């Protein structure tokens, strides 16, 4: 395990990208005036491969598209919610040409979900899963820990498609020690716990809540960490793993529910495979939350805690 895995997701991934960029001059890194400790050495030592485009996310995406059309691999870096400003550029200059040609542009989106807790609703990013999932030809990656974020540095250059990468702003403990193949982005998910009652299908930081629930009642809950949310994953495998041997499935995401996110992915699999297994959803209601408070307070206000999940699961545990 690399020491990078003990860093925040952004620094783990940037550190791994930096190592690749030193060997591969065809990789470029663009930042919309966003920094990170790991970016300092990259900026200083690879100035020819780094561009600060300024507070200009739209142009960052268009420039990245032009670079990719000339065969370069590009990583872009900005605050997650500020990518919405460039949504049309992502749609027209990345997703659309990706249908007919390789376009290897990797959108590193810092501050998934409520990561920027006290910064308020401009910085909360609760729409990105559903918005980005709706774009054709765009992969949506959602690591729960820095091991997984780190693995994106190897995966990203190998898949010449645009990718949206949700990065949590806080440091989380590793959830995948000993789980073989747990960062397989072609499969798109990893089974972290097995149980015989309720499957918890989670993504991003909610995977940690799911593990907390499962570890309070060993053997009862399965935990599936969805690390990729677009249609490119092993959908039948995910359906099998979230239903076989379970009485119910609960989806958990730090994002709005009922608008196309992880809950919709789970629902669509139930429909596609004609399953009547009960499905409960944990996520945020569609409001902008102005009330101050840190992430734990925000999550508690919206009932996104292990206790609330356990209570909803209780009827199927007996």
């Amino acid at each position, binding site marked *: 395990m690399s020491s990078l895995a003990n860093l925040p997701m952004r620094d783990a991934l940037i550190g791994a990208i930096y190592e690749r960029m030193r060997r591969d001059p065809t990789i470029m890194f663009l930042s919309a005036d966003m920094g990170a400790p790991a970016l300092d050495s990259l900026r200083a030592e690879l100035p020819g491969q780094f561009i600060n485009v300024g507070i200009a996310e*739209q142009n960052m995406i*268009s*420039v990245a598209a032009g670079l990719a059309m000339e065969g370069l691999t590009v990583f872009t870096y900005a605050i997650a919610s500020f990518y919405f400003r460039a949504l049309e*550029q992502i749609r*027209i*200059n990345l997703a659309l040409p990706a249908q007919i040609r390789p376009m290897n542009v990797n959108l590193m989106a810092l501050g998934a979900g409520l990561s920027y807790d006290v910064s308020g609703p401009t910085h909360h990013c609760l729409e990105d899963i559903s918005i980005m999932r709706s774009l054709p030809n765009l992969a949506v990656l959602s690591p729960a820990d820095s091991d997984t974020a780190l693995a994106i540095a190897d995966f990203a250059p190998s898949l010449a498609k645009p990718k949206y990468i949700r990065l949590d702003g806080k440091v989380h403990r590793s959830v995948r020690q000993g789980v073989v193949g747990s960062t397989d982005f072609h499969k798109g998910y990893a089974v972290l716990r097995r149980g015989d009652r309720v499957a918890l299908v989670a993504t991003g930081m909610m995977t940690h809540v799911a593990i907390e629930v499962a570890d309070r009642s060993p053997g009862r809950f399965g935990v599936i960490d969805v690390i990729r949310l677009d249609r490119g994953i092993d959908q039948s495998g995910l359906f099998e793993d979230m239903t076989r041997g379970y009485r119910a499935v609960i989806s958990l995401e730090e994002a709005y529910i009922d608008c196309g996110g992880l809950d919709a992915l789970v629902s669509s699999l139930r429909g596609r495979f004609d399953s009547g297994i009960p499905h409960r959803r944990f996520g945020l209601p569609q409001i902008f939350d102005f009330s101050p408070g840190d992430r734990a307070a925000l999550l508690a206000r919206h009932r996104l805690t292990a206790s609330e999940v356990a209570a909803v699961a209780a009827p199927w545990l007996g």
Partner: protein
Amino acid sequence: MLSNELQAKANWVRNRTLEMHRLAPGIRIASSLSPVEILTALYYGNLLHQNPADARDPARDRFVASKGHGTLCLYPILADLGFFPADELDRVGKQNSILGVIPEPITPGVETTNGSLGHGLGVACGMAIALRRAGNPAKVFVLCGDGEMNVGAIWEAVMFAAKHRLDNLHVIVDDNGRSMLGYQKDILGLDPLAPKFETFGFAVAEVDGHDVNALVATLRRLKLLADGRPKAIIARTIKGHTVPELETDPLAHIRVLSHQSIDAALRSRP
């Protein structure tokens, strides 16, 4: 090509574009007539070097048709040069054609997606950086409309191009003074455009956008300039050029010409 041959070629491009409009009334004819001489100068004036046998030849100069739907006069040129068979021009917008009413990158010779305004210059900046990094001497040309200058992302790209000293990048503004709903002077008042680009660090030239030989001379002079500044060519044009009912209509953008009007226009400049 001699100067009188260039003008004759421009007339041919214009007339072929009008003929396309007869079969494809959905194309934006008014804004596709203003850049006829600009594109004739680029493609026939020994300025833009491309390879019809290999539309993605790495050595090619890149052309980005950023004012997409207003560049349909590009199709006759690409067909004439051999990018695709000329009979395809009769099928613009028809089922299974490779020619849409807006140029898309499924058409050989079309680099980018151009259906939404304000994107081409930023993408061209990325291309220009990549070419320079690769030591590739190819140049990048972008055709924008003056209405497109309303888009904020254009000015993000303008600042970027100047800061990164992209002197392999050429922006040509088809300054026909009108967008969809009237005159630019009544909408955001872009004039004077040239000093704006100058202040942002571009080498700028203004030229009569319907004088094909002046266009060739101006574009050649700027193409040879290599002092770190990106280049802007403000080409003063007339929307619907040579068709009186388009030239005088503030709402010409969405006008569809009758067959009689097309016949009259074809007779005016055989």
